[in-house]
């Protein structure tokens, strides 16, 4: 095995860990291989010294108290399923930046995010109106040309317009999503009522990190430290809010309501996703029943090979999509504990 191949395989198998941890582990192993090569060994020899690859993965994950799922599942389930899992991993890997963005969003940031998305959708709807007018006018004008030529041109014209509209819409959506992510990460206010800037809620995450680094040299297991810090930081936030509230009566509402709205949107968003996933689950269920019937029929000697393939295809596609959505929205990364 070559170095890059080894590192790639390693990366894909420990992707369950925090990105930072993964980077760290990869760095260590790469450094080790490089040192080995400096001392005169070949890439292959250096990697062979690590012994059995699966054993190594098991050891690494065990250091984080995680059992190696990939190993057991590939031996106990079919190749097909292993392939599906791999494909899902690949896709989530590809979508990792977006997933991370969504995962790191806080309550009020989700407010901005959703604000921009709504704005984008409204833009897409509005952009249809001028195109619609243009199409009517164009077709009406072209129909003046005699002998049916005008009609043909009219059809071509409207198709071209439709494509143009589609392109514009896609551009708007891409731009909108970019802006939404930007706004969410930078906390830029959008022109909506609910997105006045708030300073009261959610410095929690930052303070956790700060205090954690202070705690680190002390004699405490990380897990305990983290819990403690969170409890500590919560009351430390509250007093500052209270003081401000006493100062001014008017902004009080905003300060209390805004984080609430943010969290409400998070909940709403997750609920919305769940509801959206429901038909997906139903579809999977239905397809499984169909599959069952088909297998029963096949046993009796009636074959629908084509249909069979289609059902399996849709089934795996749907479940893949569901899995991705689930991972994207509800994904909790495993941190070292």
């Amino acid at each position: 095995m070559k170095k890059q191949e080894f590192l790639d395989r390693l990366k894909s198998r420990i992707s369950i860990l925090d990105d930072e941890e993964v980077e760290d582990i990869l760095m260590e192993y790469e450094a080790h291989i490089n040192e080995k090569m400096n001392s005169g060994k070949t890439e292959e020899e250096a990697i062979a010294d690590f012994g059995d690859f699966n054993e190594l993965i098991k050891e690494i994950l065990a250091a984080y108290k995680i059992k190696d799922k990939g190993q057991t599942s590939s031996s106990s389930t079919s190749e097909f399923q292993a392939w599906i899992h791999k494909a899902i991993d690949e896709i989530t890997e590809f979508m990792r930046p977006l997933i991370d963005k969504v995962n790191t969003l806080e309550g009020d940031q989700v407010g901005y995010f959703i604000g921009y998305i709504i704005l984008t959708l409204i833009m897409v709807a509005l952009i249809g109106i001028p195109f619609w007018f243009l199409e009517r006018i164009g077709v009406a004008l072209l129909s003046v040309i005699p002998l049916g030529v005008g009609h043909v041109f009219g059809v071509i014209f409207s198709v071209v317009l439709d494509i143009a509209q589609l392109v514009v819409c896609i551009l708007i959506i891409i731009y909108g999503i970019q802006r939404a992510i930007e706004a969410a990460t930078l906390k830029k206010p959008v022109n909506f009522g609910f997105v006045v800037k708030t300073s009261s809620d959610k410095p929690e995450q930052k303070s956790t990190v700060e205090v954690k680094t202070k705690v680190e040299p002390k004699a405490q297991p990380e897990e305990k430290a983290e819990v403690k810090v969170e409890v500590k930081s919560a009351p430390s936030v509250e007093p500052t809010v209270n003081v401000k509230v006493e100062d001014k009566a008017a902004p009080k509402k905003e300060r209390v309501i805004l984080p609430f709205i943010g969290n409400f949107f998070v909940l709403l968003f997750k609920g919305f996703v769940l509801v959206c996933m429901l038909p997906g689950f139903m579809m999977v269920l239905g397809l499984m029943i169909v599959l069952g019937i088909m297998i029963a029929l096949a046993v009796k000697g009636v074959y629908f090979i084509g249909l069979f393939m289609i059902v399996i295809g849709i089934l795996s596609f749907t479940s893949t999509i569901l899995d991705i959505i689930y991972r994207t929205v509800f994904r909790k990364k495993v941190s070292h504990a």
Partner: protein
Amino acid sequence: MNSQFKKGVLELIVLQIVSKKDRYGYELVEEVSKAVEVNEGTIYPLLKRLTNEHYFDAYIQESSEGPPRKYYHLTTMGRQQLTELAKEWTEFYDSVNQFMKGD
């Protein structure tokens, strides 16, 4: 040598090596190999675990040859753990020896 034996003792050896002076990964692996025959890949997960348990502090330092290296430093807590483990090891070693001589 029995790998279960090694696993337990490896932590002791690694702590002992780092207690003398700060080491980077590869160097540490080499040192360990001098003491016991060990699969090189498995040292890193151990280092990771010991760092997570705050026995080690890790820091990056530039090196004259090649990219910066990650050094491990034994913390006070690590030193306590080392004393503890060394004591356990001695006791264990003595009692097993005693037993083997016994009959």
